[in-house]
């Protein structure tokens, strides 16, 4: 049953794509006359996920839904919304999933701070490992003059 739903969902996705004259991403007809507003619209669009082709931004997507959201976005901007208000209008309808830039909230702290945490943990681990190694290794017996000469030769070659 779940398989059928899976297949059917694919059909839904496929259909919304196929049965409408493919709008190739942002169309000239959609663009706003005001370049500043249009630039904002393009910037915001590139940070919103197309829910139909879920791995494209609405700026790039051919889906008619992307087209609709692009129009909605431009209408809100023209009506005087700030960037945040315009985005909120879309998030209110489609949820956080439409944001390609995940919101910063307790649920996503691990996501946002994770990379830094891993880096710090790794650096810390590396330093501890270095410290531990010099602690546990015993001092080697002193070298004989013969060994010292061999050592110098080898080091000279290795350092090249």
């Amino acid at each position, binding site marked *: 049953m*779940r*398989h059928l739903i*899976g*297949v059917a*969902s*694919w059909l839904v996705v496929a259909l919304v794509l*196929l049965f409408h*004259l*493919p*709008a*190739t*991403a*942002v*169309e*000239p*007809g959609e*663009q706003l006359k005001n370049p500043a507003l249009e630039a904002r619209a393009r910037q915001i669009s590139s*940070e919103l*996920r197309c829910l139909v*082709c*879920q*791995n*494209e*931004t609405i700026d*790039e997507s051919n889906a008619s839904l992307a087209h609709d959201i692009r129009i909605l976005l431009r209408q809100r901007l023209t009506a005087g919304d700030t960037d945040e208000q315009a985005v909120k209008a879309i998030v209110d309808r489609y*949820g*956080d*999933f*439409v*944001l*390609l*830039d*995940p*919101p910063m909230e307790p*649920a*996503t702290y*691990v*996501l*946002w701070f*994770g*990379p830094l945490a*891993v*880096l710090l943990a*790794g*650096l810390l*681990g*590396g*330093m501890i490992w*270095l410290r531990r*190694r*010099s602690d546990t*290794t015993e001092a080697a017996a002193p070298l004989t003059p013969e060994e010292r000469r061999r050592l110098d030769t080898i080091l000279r070659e*290795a*350092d*090249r």
Partner: protein
Amino acid sequence: MITEFGHLALILAFCVALVQATVPMLGAARAHPGWMAVGRNTALVQFALVAVAMAALMHAYITSDFSVINVVQNSHTDKPLLYKVTGVWGNHEGSMLLWIFMLSLCGAALALFSGNLPPDLRARVLAVQGMISAGFLIFILLTSNPFLRVWPPAANGQGLNPVLQDPGLAFHPPFLYLGYVGFSVAFSFAVAALIEGRVDAAWARWVRPWSLASWCFLTVGIAMGSWWSYYTLGWGGWWFWDPVENASFMPWLVGTALIHSAIVVERRDTLKSWTILLAIVTFSLSLVGTFLVRSGVLSSVHAFAVDPLRGSFILLLLIVAIGGSLTLYAIRAPSLKGGGLFAPVSREGALLLNNVLLTACAATVFLGTLYPLFLDAVGGAKVSVGPPFFDRTFAPMMVPVLIAMAVGPMLSWKRGDLLGALQRLWIAFAVAAVFTLGTLYMLYGGPVLAVFGMGLAVWTGMGVATEFAERIRLLRIPVAESFRRAINLPRAAIGMSLAHLGMAISVIGISASAFEQEYLAIVPVGGDFTLAGYQFHFDKVENLQGPNYVANDATIEVRHNGSLIDVMHPERRFFALQDQTTAVTAIRTNPIADLYVALGDPSDKGWTIRAYWKPLISWIWGGALVMAFGGVVSLSDRRWRVGAATRARHTVTAQTAPAE
């Protein structure tokens, strides 16, 4: 008939793989030479059988045998021959067969070129390879069998997705898979070493060439995939941080750490447990990538059909392979005793830092890719993670990597002189600073971060040049002497310089994408437009007939300073069978910039034209090719030749202290 042979061959391959997985391992445990030798022959036979299966499937496609379900679902008589052949791996079952083909190829190569390994290590390595093969073969046979039949045969097939009908399909998956799968060799070596309880310089000397070769293939495979997206998708995007793209990028990052870490094991007999872990993790990430793409847990444009049953099977394979190897690591790794000491500031220290940084980069990509899944599984909200996240977390993490790439090679082993190295790099710093400040001044108000990115890459590139100049003692000895030194440098050194340089080149290309310019409008036939100082004339649109499509072919003349420099032909192709339209973009490439033109929809006012000027974008893939070439040059170093490893092993065993 031939299809039956293919099917049978696949079943036999599984049986052979089972033998390969068990007998040599037992033989190594009991020091039984005959059983240990079984590994070599079973690996070769397994490859031969899988090759037969692959050939059989290809035959079914080429002859359009529509009694085979896989052919019905993915092929069509009108499809051009190139896509009949390469379309074999354009679907889940066929690409799994390609996967196992590459895996058995690596196994066979391992069998052929491992004559100088001690028999017990060789037996164990081949046995682990056999285990992996057996796991995937049974997966294919039970859940993803490409040889299933349908009766009566269909009249014709459903054709191949038009987006895939491109030469890129011929190259991208094979290279990519060879890279992905190639790291299974390092994995097998790691597991074998853990079972044996011994990791020494000789082990590293064997592992490095295999890892390096896989790395080269993966680099090329990823670069090809990116370039393919670029010229096919119509808006010039080349990386979306899509889960499947990330699934190939993570093994690349950790694989890079592996090939660097193995140097330290080989030269200084230390960082052993780190390197073993990296070898296990690299291939584990390949496996996780396979799971993500084929189980349907993440949505991706690359993902094959949603099928939780397959997903469960692959998860089982993951648990056995990754869980098993990591458990072995937990048990055995603590007893691996390290050898050489080194000061924190030294070449080894720099390589350790490299390990940590690259692993953190991989962890970042991992976190971003899988976080939606984690959150959803614990019942949290559905969030999505896209390019803005990665731009803000991954890019900053690459900064220390690029800085360290210039400094690291300048430090000596065991105890390095950081201050001295930095002083010797003053030229690199000066050039980078001049470049950055100069560009910022010229582009007042332009993208600042991109300029810093380029400046950083200049620093890295100049660092490579400085290190190279030092090696050949440029300006300290006569030029002819320097030249002679350069020619006689060990290839590994040249390879390193090339690879690091390639990285710098790619980063410049990536940073420069902030400066691209776009033109988007409806242009009437006969109309003109300008972009980035070029004048475009939209001459005409003609209708063309292709083998399985009809196309609108536009002719666009490009002029610069009045003189005609090119005629570009973007197309829109309509595939009747799938009722789908794809764009074929016209791209004019040169080292300075790409001119990129795509034809959109017609309307009563003309046609939608989408044109881009993309500066330095070819440097992205050019840099990747230079990186891969550097890897190949390094591989050709005569120290890797068969005899050398034996000699080295004897010398190492003689000189190494017995404290293992």
